């Protein structure tokens, strides 16, 4: 009977297993295998080099720069994105006028195609005709060259990324806040807790699962950043300043056609994301109060 149950369960899981195995697990494992070779995608001969590609990575300054850029991107986007999203969600959880309009406005960038968004931000950042320089000009700030400036290019991409993903995080937080039972607030009120104390001791701890979730997916997402960079700086920067890890992978794989080397980069990205997920789970796991 038990055995039979398992069989049925696996049968139901089969479609997902096939898709995940076919499109995720097998390609991932195959790319580890390819990372042991030098291969240009079309040669019949693959030259076996063992771990030489990983050795080359360790001393490749461009790789380290791309890792640095990725960490910089994560630090620049995640805390700011989360705090901003939380504040907005908190505001939207109150009964204010035009609530639905605000919710729509914040969510609109999420569902807009990144290509269309990229075109608009290219125009916003245009050094002569851009609206950003015009706006800053009103406050007497001199015009910047944004995407053409190695110092500002990556922050410019970060700004667009925060704006683009804000609405998604807002929705997660909003659901988290709204799902807190009224009784807790009533109890707090009876105990004589005031505005900030309620927020600090009721709202915040109970939204922690949402914060954990958003942090995790933001972190994974930031290590997978590619499209934003590619749309705004198709060449990965001025002076490689926007070359993040996945862009570096892309450049090696599909511009230089060093498939083995690119696969080695992809393995490193895999390890980083895997480690971060485990660490985060361990750290946060003990600190979250799940509503039963």
């Amino acid at each position, binding site marked *: 009977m038990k055995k039979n149950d398992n069989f049925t369960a696996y049968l139901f899981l089969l479609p997902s297993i096939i898709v995940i195995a076919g499109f995720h697990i097998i390609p991932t494992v195959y790319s580890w295998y390819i990372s042991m070779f030098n291969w240009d995608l*079309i040669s019949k001969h693959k030259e076996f080099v063992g771990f030489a590609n990983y050795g080359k990575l360790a001393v490749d300054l461009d790789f380290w720069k791309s890792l640095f850029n990725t960490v910089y991107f994560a630090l620049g986007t995640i805390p700011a994105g989360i705090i901003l999203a939380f504040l907005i969600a908190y505001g939207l959880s109150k009964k204010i006028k035009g609530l639905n309009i605000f919710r729509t406005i914040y969510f609109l960038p999420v569902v807009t195609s990144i290509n269309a968004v990229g075109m608009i931000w290219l125009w916003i950042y245009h050094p*002569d*005709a851009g609206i950003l320089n015009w706006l800053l000009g009103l406050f007497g700030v001199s015009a910047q060259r944004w995407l*053409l400036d190695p110092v500002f290019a990556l922050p410019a991409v970060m700004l667009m990324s925060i704006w683009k993903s804000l609405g998604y995080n807002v929705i997660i937080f909003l659901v988290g806040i709204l799902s807190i039972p009224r009784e807790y607030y009533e109890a707090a009120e009876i105990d004589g807790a005031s505005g900030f104390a309620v927020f600090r001791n009721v709202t915040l701890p109970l939204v922690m699962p949402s914060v954990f979730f958003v942090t995790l997916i933001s972190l994974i997402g930031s290590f997978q950043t590619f499209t934003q960079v590619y749309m705004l700086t198709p*060449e990965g920067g*001025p002076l490689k300043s926007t070359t993040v890890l996945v862009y570096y992978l892309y450049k090696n794989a599909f*511009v*230089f056609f060093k498939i083995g080397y690119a696969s080695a980069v992809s393995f490193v990205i895999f390890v980083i994301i895997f480690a971060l997920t485990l660490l985060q789970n361990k750290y946060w796991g003990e600190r979250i109060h799940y509503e039963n």
Partner: protein
Amino acid sequence: MKVKIIIILLAVYLFSGCSTPSDQIKLDFWHAMADPKDKVLNVLVSDFEKQNPGIKITTQYVGNYDVLLQKLLASVAAGNPPDIAQVYENWTTRFVEEKAIVRIEDFFSRDYDKEKDLQDIYPVFLKNNSYDKKLWTFPFNKSIYVYYYNEALFKKEGLVPPKTASEFLNICTKLTKRDESGKVVRYGFGFRANIDIFAIFLYMNKGRFFNEEETKSTFNNAVGRETLQFISDLYNKYKVAEYSKDYLDNDFASGRLAAFFATSPHRSYLEPLVAFPLGVAPLPAGKVKAVPIAGTNLAIFEKKKKTAGREEACFRFIKWLSGSENNVKWAIGTSYLPIRKSAAENPAMLAHLKKKPFDAVGIHEIENAVPDPRLKCWQEVRIYIGEALEKVLLQRESPGVALDEAAKKVDALLAR
């Protein structure tokens, strides 16, 4: 009764067989011709199909050239390439090496008017499509760099397009306009910060990227350094040019740039954008008159599964498309160069040139054409030199240091 049913079934079987003739050859043609050029191409393809009912050609726009290369390599690796595709010369080098394409010479050498073609097609294109003296691919959409300028502005200022490098600098200076606060509201010239602008000025200065055998970099010699210094000076010293990573069309159309370099067919994108009369002139001459050509050729891809007559059908199409009459239609519709002299002298072409003298500018430049290097690692070289240009524009390094760094990387690739 039974017999009747069998006869009916048989008839159905036979007739349904007739409606889709099984002997029709189906060909896939991958290209990177965006709107409006793809329209011209599709009209030609359907003309071909009308004249050759046994062949059906499915054209597919797969994206820009970068994407086309990615998809071609992936499809070759997967053993499922298209039948025909546009290819750049440095891609062909790769495909020839891997035997991924069919040698066109094998069909061309048997062609009835081969000798006529050899006389008729511009030698630069023939040479550029030949590997070990055999024709592997066939020239298709070839273009050449020209000087686009704001004609209304030039007229107002009493200027004519520059013929020499010093006139070029002079005009850039005259047309750069600043407002009261000193902010530039119009630049005399604009360029995209990549290898193309360097190639244009390098060839003009009689420089080349590599030695004759393509075994060593020469772009970092005195000529290369001087070239890069000049480009940097336009931006950093004289401040008469602006650069961008993006296309310059909108900046030109809005009047922020007085002139820029782009290839001849770029006209079809510019014309709908600009509200002023558009001017097209040959590139100014440097120490010599030399102009880079761009654009792709057509290749027939090798298939694992052999279909009778497939390769012949591909060649038939390529040959038809490049024939004088169709080449004229293509050139008129897109402003790409005619690939043969007879097309350039065709009455329909001459009538078109009278109406649009622009297109004659590029044709006259063919005699000064310099093709791109065909090295397999050319894509990488392009990026390394682009990085050198960027470092110099941002004043991080001197031209000498930046070019030497790039040459070191390139020579390592060449040594392989």
